[in-house]
Structures are given as C-alpha cells and as structure tokens.
C-alpha cells in the first residue's frame, strides 16, 4: 500500500475525482495536480487524458493540437488511445484553440437509445472570467454563474442547442493551467450577461 507502488493510480484517481465533482456541480472550478506534457497541452488536460483515456477511447485533436506532432506521440505513449481524424468517432476531443472549436454537431451525440455514446470535449481556455452565463440544472442548487474565455461569440447559443437535444449531446470540460470546470449536457442557460 506504499505511495510509490500506487503513485500513478492515486494521480489518476485524483484527476478523475476532480472531474466527477465538476460534472456533478456544473460550473464549479476545481484545481488538480497537473502532469507535464508537450505544448500546447495544459498540465490539467494532460492529467485528465492520462486518467481517463486508453485503447478503448479514441481521441480527436483540433488543428492546434494536431500541428504539434509531439502531442499525438505523447498520447499514444502514455495512454495507447488511437488518434482519430473524424470528430464523431471520438470519445474525447481535445481543443487547444477554444475560439475555433468546431460546432458540437461535428462530434458524436450518442443515440436516443444510447446517449452515452457521445464525445466529451476538453477545451483549453485562458481564464475562467468574462461575460457570465447563469446556469440551472442537475447539480446546481439555485443558479450558478460560469465564465470562460476566449469562447466563440455564439457559444451560449451552441450550449442551448446542445441542451435541446437532451439526452443526446456532448459534455464539455474546460481547462486552464491547473484548474477545470465542466458543463454536462444537462445544464440550461437562464441568463446571459
């Protein structure tokens, strides 16, 4: 039960648990212990990928990540996850250029019978600040404000369209250097500021 023997297992568990908390409480920000990875991958992104990805979970890279060959090599070496060119075949999509992120419909939405067969999009942003969205939904006691930047100008509308498709849809994870927040498909926007 010594720490060295289970070090990697503990790091995976801690990263997963942080994301589990974030998905359970949409918009809440948690920090997690990052992992070193080639640029432009943020330490928290790397921790999540190492914690959750393996040969059963194909990964799609946005052009900003794909432009750095070291990223695909790092992912294959540490997780064994296949890199896929088609975003709708991905279990996880990694987005380094948040402003240019593709519309959610390009990713797997799951089916009515199996809505879980959908893509989780991990988006790197510069900061959790900017114009706030006021959210409601499972995991939120009353309302919660969420802000991240930079995001596409029509981001709020994309999120509304994603909610319209429930239970199909994508789940979003936002990452700054060491901090994460999540917006599961269940969130509704009640106010935009």
């Amino acid at each position: 039960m010594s720490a060295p023997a289970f070090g990697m297992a503990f790091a995976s568990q801690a990263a997963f648990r942080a994301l589990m908390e974030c998905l359970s409480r949409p918009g809440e920000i948690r920090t997690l212990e990052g992992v070193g990875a080639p640029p432009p991958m943020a330490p928290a992104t790397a921790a999540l990928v190492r914690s959750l990805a393996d040969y059963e979970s194909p990964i799609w890279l946005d052009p900003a990540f794909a432009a750095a060959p070291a990223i695909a090599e790092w992912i294959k070496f540490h997780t064994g996850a296949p890199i896929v060119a088609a975003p709708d075949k991905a279990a996880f999509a990694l987005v380094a250029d948040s402003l240019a992120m593709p519309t959610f419909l390009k990713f797997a939405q799951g089916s009515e019978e199996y809505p879980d067969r959908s893509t989780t999009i991990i988006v790197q942003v510069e900061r959790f600040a900017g114009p706030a969205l006021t959210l409601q939904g499972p995991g939120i006691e009353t309302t919660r404000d969420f802000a991240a930047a930079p995001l596409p100008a029509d981001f709020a509308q994309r999120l509304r369209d994603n909610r319209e498709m429930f239970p199909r849809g994508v789940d979003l994870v936002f990452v700054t250097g060491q901090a994460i927040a999540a917006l599961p498909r269940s969130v509704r926007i009640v106010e935009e500021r």
Partner: protein
Amino acid sequence: MTAPVYNFAYLDEQTKRMIRRAILKAIAIPGYQVPFASREMPMPYGWGTGGVQVTAAILGPQDVLKVIDQGSDDTTNAVSIRKFFTRTAGVRTTTATLEATVIQTRHRVPEAALSADQVLVYQVPIPEPLRFLEPRETETRRMHALSEYGLMHVKLYEDIARHGHIATAYAYPVQVASRYVMDPSPIPKFDNPKLSNCPALQLFGAGREKRIYAIPPYTRVTSLDFDDHPFEPYRHDASCELCAATDSYLDEVITDDQGNRMFVCSDTDYCEHRRALGHGPIAATQKEPADG
C-alpha cells in the same frame, strides 16, 4: 476474498478507467442506465458487486468509507465489504454517517442529512424499472428513449384498483430531473424523498446487469403518483423503543421466543447517535425530570 493485493482497491487501472468513464456519462445524463463491462469480483453477485465496483473506481487514499446493509453496519455483507476495502485499499472506515466521504449502501438511505462532501453508492440488483413490464432490453431501451412511461403508470394504477392504494413498498419507481424513470434500488419508499435535492452525489451500480446510473446533487427526483392518489412515504406508526425517534424508518424485531416484538430504528448509526445525545426509551423520557 484472500487473493494478494496487486491493485489499489482490487480493480486494475484499465477496468477503473472504463468504470470511471461510465460514471461520468451517468452524471451527465441523470437517471439513464449506462452499460459497463462489469468484472468478476471475489464475492457472489448477490453481495453487491455493482456497488463494490463503483466504490473501487471512485475510492482514493483520503477517503473514509462506511458500508451499510439494511441500515446496519454490522451485517455479514456490510462487514465483509468493509474488510475487502480495508485490505485492498487500506482506507479508513467508519460507522458514523457524518464522518464518511463514501457510503456504500444496500436497501437504505441513511437518516442523517448527507453533505456535498459525500458520495452515496447504492448496490442495485435489478436496475431496469420497466423490466417486469417488458423483458426485452431492446424494448425497454426504446421506451426510455421515447419517454414512453404510460405502462408504468398503468401498473401503479392497477395497484390502486386492487388494493385501494399503491402497494409497491420497495424499489418504488422515481423520475429523475423530469426525464428518466429510474429504479431507486430496493429501498423502502420511506427513503424516496431523500433522493431529491440531496447535496451528495448518488451513484448506482448493478453488477450482474452491468449498469451504472446516477443522480447528481440537487436534482429533483419525484416518485411516480397520481393527482387523486399522491405518493405517501410509509413508516410504522410508532417510535423507536431504544431512542424514541419518531422520524426514522423502523424495523420490527422479535425480542424473545414468545413472539414479542419491538420497533427500532433500521439505521443503527442514527439510533446510536441519538442515544449518545441522551435520547432514550419513551418510558424514560416520560419520567419527571430530576430537577423538576
């Protein structure tokens, strides 16, 4: 349960990743049953292997684990699951609801209000609430996809026609966030209201049926009912004979071979906690106070 420990909390890392991905989907789609590749565990299916796998996937070295079976920490099932995680994960265990960060349960929800720092893991034997209406998985999948829950209401209404009330007392079906109808596992319907707007995350694991589902914190959970027959949580019209609680779920236990019975809290930690605070049998509380 005596195999040597190679992995933290028994499961290998690849299996934990697979279960963790299923848990994350379950949280994002409240009440929806996510299929997962359930593993053989070193205990029989009836012993809560689904709950054990969920607990093993979320547990970390900082966690404090409580395991209850029918409200008690001391049944064979609860003791052996607690020992399993003590041995394979080395985590601290407790019987105090308020001290636990992860609570694995079979057939009850603790009486004490749970907090945002806790996760409640339910052991589930039959996760599909529509199964008794429709044996085919493809059909129940389709019914959930279309929110086709009319037959479920018809079944409950037949109870009313036959018994004058809804006779379902355990595993009483709920609807989560106005969407999926879900089996809350065989808890008494007394516990159903505790599922709604709970500050703690609730996870459900069915090992044999290979399903994981979830209720996120602060999610509205309603028990299916009718305008003319609203849902009523049942409890024996009595108080606990050990701690005088009038708000807890009671078990009727036989006290001797003459068939005498008494009512006691099903949640043993709740009962002990109350007695430690000075709450006693009703006869005692009715005595004149010493300083009176």
